[in-house]
């Protein structure tokens, strides 16, 4: 993102010109784009959004996408939701932010509520118990895979301190089931201090 686009508090008509990516979308295109990635986005929307917005539609370059997403990860709130609001606002102000946000959230929320109604109605029936048992077991495998994939860079770079922080977080929250607030208040500053020493 260019400095100009990042800075503008008011919907910037000029941001389109200042943004190096060529195909900045219109408001309806924003809605359609986020709609598409969210309904195809099984297992999280990030990978799909990157493919669609960077490679297929070329709204953003890979670097612009990574920069903006890193910012959204850093800020509080669900990452991709932040992404839709900030990106939509930068291009078209309130209309852009609303189009992106509604496109991203409305379809899966409706689907989720329907799924929830089916679960509440039929989930306890013996015919569906087996299916749900299998689904939950597979979900556990998927979560283990995600954790291992995330931890991989630590192994590869032989980073001892971050690995210990990750292990301590796992122990405190997963095994001992301590409240998240206290675990974060203690471990986050410690981890950031260690990272600070490493980046300096």
């Amino acid at each position: 993102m260019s400095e100009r686009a990042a800075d503008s508090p008011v919907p910037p008509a000029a941001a389109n010109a200042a943004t190096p990516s060529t195909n900045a979308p219109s408001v309806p295109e924003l809605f359609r784009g986020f709609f598409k990635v969210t309904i195809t986005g099984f297992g999280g929307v990030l990978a799909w959004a990157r493919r669609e917005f960077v490679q297929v539609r070329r709204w953003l370059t890979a670097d612009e996408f990574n920069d903006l997403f890193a910012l959204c990860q850093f800020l509080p709130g669900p990452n991709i939701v932040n992404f839709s609001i900030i990106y939509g606002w930068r291009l078209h102000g309130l209309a852009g932010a609303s189009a992106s946000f509604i496109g991203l959230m409305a379809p899966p929320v409706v689907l989720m509520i329907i799924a929830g109604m089916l679960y509440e109605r039929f989930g306890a029936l013996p015919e569906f118990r087996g299916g749900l048992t299998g689904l939950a077991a597979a979900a556990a495998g998927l979560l283990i895979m995600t954790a291992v994939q995330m931890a991989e860079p630590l192994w590869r770079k032989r980073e001892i301190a971050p690995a210990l922080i990750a292990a301590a977080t796992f122990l405190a929250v997963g095994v001992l089931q301590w409240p998240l607030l206290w675990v974060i208040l203690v471990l986050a500053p410690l981890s950031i201090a260690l990272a600070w020493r490493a980046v300096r």
Partner: protein
Amino acid sequence: MKDDIGTLFTLALLFTLLSFLSVGGAISALPEVHRQAVDLHGWMTDRQFAEIVAIAQAAPGPNVLFVTLIGQHVAGIPGALVATFFMCGPACGVAFFVARAFDRFKEKPWRRAVQAGLVPLSIGLVAAVALIIARTADRDAATIAITAATFAITYWTRISPLFALGIASAVGFAGIL
């Protein structure tokens, strides 16, 4: 409990707090949701929690939407909407207003330190989620085998996770589990 304003208020408060604590991604909030929903409030059993998370994983859309199902289980459709809104609204509002300021610090070492420092926490939290779900879902040799197979397929091949979820529920539905 279904129409209880107090319950909706509790949900709103819980998810507002969690939205600020979910470091790295919404999924990091899951262990705390489990602690509150199962252990503290008794809104659901371990098993219901695991199933709800599994359904959310199988559905399309942002990962954060597991809160929609949790809210719905606790307080119906109002619960679903309250949980979703408060998990996104307040934190995204803050994010929106500080995005400008923080973007300027992109190259500053302290920002890189904060970002790098939060990574190990989110790894530990996702591992904790995996443990919490596995502890409930894996109760015999067959379910452990499904978990292991799903891990192997999704980790070592490029086959879609959806395929693994589909096969696993089909196997269960056929009465093998």
